């Protein structure tokens, strides 16, 4: 440390001095960890020896602050990120088990992506086994649209594989900022679908196709990245479902979402491809919900909205193809990616596509599925209407008494349909419209009870049904709204004098009010439990 520092140029000229250039070279060599250049530079100018440490420390500090210095736990932070013959440059992604780096392969002078098991040498034998199986399977696949595996290996106990690095951005990020015309979307996606066909022909199911796993390169070609991640790193979907992190089920086939692992077939990938195409065409996901539990239920139960509702320029024939991919029943989908690609090519050539208009029976099934909840409600309301009408026929002398009730019931049905239509038009406000439906139930029911003075009869138990139905939304808050509204309504009805000759026992009314609260507690705890099961981990 006592050595005098090297003389440094102090000229004010704009031309970089030789000292600056030497220092810059040294810094670059230090960053690249190029020992021979470092030695040569120091030999040329002994004074630089001193600077080497400072520059190295600064670089190390930079790595430490920029992040990504720990290689899956193998390299302590602050250390050089040299990994065998690779130089790790940047972390590209990280998940429950794997981490992917962009790296430079020095001997072949090419960029690569390196994937390792998170946790380094601490990973269990089972993890290592899966990881190797994944790598080996991936290495067998050769297709221009699937990232190529260069090397599978182990360095210092760290299992890794090196693969082709595709310079581009994830389709998810691309779609967040760009719209794609219908035909272009099809043209972009067909090569990827052919690549998945290539997998299917080798009896491999990808199982985790989603925009984030597709990379759009600078020539606007899509590549399947992270191939096999879901298939082999995590061959047991049930484990994912019960695990702490539930993935986004937005692109997951209904059979996967339902955890029916044994039923998985290439048609599961067809569903995911259809969901990706849907998003490219519509500019939104097939299903979307902040609650993973509700999203899961939508995937399993709900019929997707026609793409044309969001993008009227999409041709109907293309929608038929997408719809066929998104069928709930895997047997109704294209059996594999190849047939889907064929049909899309037929669409581009303007030939008639295989996916056609549905039979009317299937249309009805879809219609009922799309309006599932409203149909149940209408069925109940319709039954009530029939009962009242039957009573009117049986006892015509009461017709005048029941007429306003009939009006109420019809209005009930119409309002329920109205809320449903509004909810379908504006999915973002579905929360609002279904709350409105609950309130409609309470208000109309209360009005009918008021008109018929039936609060002391069995019909009053319908409030329990309203509360239970609110529980189907899986939102405890909605249940308590229903409970609150029902209690107020019941209180109002209590203002009515009891029927002549009847005595209303106050403790029975209190008991009834309590039973509404208990019903709400049960419903909301059901809802909360279901939601808890699927809450993803949250950062503290």
């Amino acid at each position, binding site marked *: 440390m006592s050595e005098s520092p090297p003389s440094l140029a102090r000229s004010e000229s704009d031309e970089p*001095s030789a000292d600056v250039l030497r220092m810059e070279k040294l810094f670059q060599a230090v960053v690249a960890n190029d020992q021979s250049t470092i030695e040569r530079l120091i030999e040329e100018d002994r004074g630089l020896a001193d600077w080497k440490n*400072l520059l190295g420390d600064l670089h190390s500090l930079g790595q430490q602050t920029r992040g990504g210095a720990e290689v899956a736990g193998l390299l302590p932070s602050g250390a050089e990120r040299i990994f065998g013959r690779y130089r790790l440059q940047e972390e590209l*992604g990280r998940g429950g088990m794997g981490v992917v780096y962009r790296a430079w392969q020095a001997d072949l002078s090419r960029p690569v992506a390196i994937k390792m098991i998170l946790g380094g040498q601490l990973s269990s034998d089972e993890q290592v086994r899966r990881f190797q199986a994944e790598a080996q399977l991936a290495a067998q696949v050769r297709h221009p649209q699937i990232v190529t595996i260069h090397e599978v290996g182990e360095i210092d106990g760290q299992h890794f594989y090196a693969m082709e690095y595709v310079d581009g951005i*994830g389709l998810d990020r691309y779609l967040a900022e760009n719209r794609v015309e219908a035909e272009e979307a099809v043209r972009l996606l067909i090569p990827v679908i052919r690549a998945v066909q290539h997998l299917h022909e080798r009896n491999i199911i990808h199982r985790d196709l989603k925009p984030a796993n597709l990379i759009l390169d600078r020539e606007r070609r899509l590549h399947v990245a992270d191939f096999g991640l879901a298939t082999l790193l995590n061959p047991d979907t049930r484990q994912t479902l019960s695990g702490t992190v539930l*993935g986004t089920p937005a692109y997951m086939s209904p059979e996967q979402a339902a955890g029916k692992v044994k039923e998985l077939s290439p048609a599961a990938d067809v569903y995911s491809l259809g969901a990706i195409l849907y998003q490219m065409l519509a500019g939104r996901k097939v299903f979307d919900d902040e609650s993973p539990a509700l999203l899961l239920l939508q995937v399993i139960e709900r019929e997707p909205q026609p793409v044309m509702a969001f993008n009227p320029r999409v041709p109907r024939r293309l929608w038929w193809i997408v719809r066929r991919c998104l069928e709930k029943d895997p047997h109704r989908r294209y059996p594999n990616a190849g047939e889907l690609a064929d049909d899309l090519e037929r669409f581009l050539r303007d030939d008639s596509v295989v996916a056609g208009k549905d039979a009317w029976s299937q249309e009805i099934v879809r219609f009922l599925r799309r309006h599932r909840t409203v149909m149940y409600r209408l069925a109940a309301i319709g039954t009530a209407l029939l009962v009242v009408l039957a009573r009117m026929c049986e006892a015509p002398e009461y017709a005048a008494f029941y007429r306003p009730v009939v009006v109420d019931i019809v209005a009930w049905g119409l309002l329920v349909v109205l809320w449903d239509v509004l909810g379908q038009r504006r999915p973002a406000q579905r929360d609002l419209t279904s709350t409105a439906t609950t309130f409609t139930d309470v208000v109309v029911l209360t009005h009918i009870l008021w008109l018929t003075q039936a609060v002391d009869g069995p019909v009053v138990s319908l409030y329990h049904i309203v509360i239970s139905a609110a529980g189907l939304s899986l939102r405890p808050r909605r249940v308590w709204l229903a409970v609150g509204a029902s209690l107020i309504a019941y209180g109002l009805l209590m203002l009515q004098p009891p029927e002549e000759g009847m005595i209303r026992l106050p403790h029975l009314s209190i008991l009834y009010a309590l039973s509404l609260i208990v019903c709400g507690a049960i419903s909301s705890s059901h809802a909360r439990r279901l939601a808890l099961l699927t809450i993803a981990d949250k*950062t503290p």
Partner: protein
Amino acid sequence: MSGGSTTFQDRLARARRGEASARDELFASCRSFVGLCARAQLEQKLRRKVDASDLVQQSLLDAHRGFERFRGSTPDEWMAWLRRIVSNNALDLIRHHVQADARAVSRERPLEGGPETSTVAFNPFEPAARQETPSQVLMGMERHLELAAAIEQLSEDHREVVYLRNVLGLPFDEVATRMERSRGAVQMLWMRALETLRSNLARESRP
């Protein structure tokens, strides 16, 4: 150098026993480092200069609050832990203020792996995997903290050039654009900044 880690171990042990002063010392010594992390984390993503002071505050606060959840024992684990907290907060910040489709992105919760996972903040309080390979550690924590503090004490121009060129690792052309000066001027500035930095460090290391 060896004193650095014992000071750290000692402070950590005392802080864990509940000594508030030791905990304060621990955090005070890391302030400059957290500041550098905050800027680096933000600017890597945003590619422009940003005011990182809120991020520094928030991260130090989080680290303070979550101190019990730090389960590591080595200086490296400590720094990695701090950086991860900064990094998570930075991601949140970026998500909230910059990304156009912020809500859609944060709602994505991938199964695992994949480039999408970069949007998933993982738990910073997880213990870091302990894989000490001492030969590969080029530099101790004390040196990191010392350097970070020394950089903070430089004049503004000097601090900026060292930060952009050495810490963030930008090429001179980019440094010149960001500082709105010619490339040659920036290189000269860099040279002087390094000299100052070195002499400051040398002065401090002398008793």
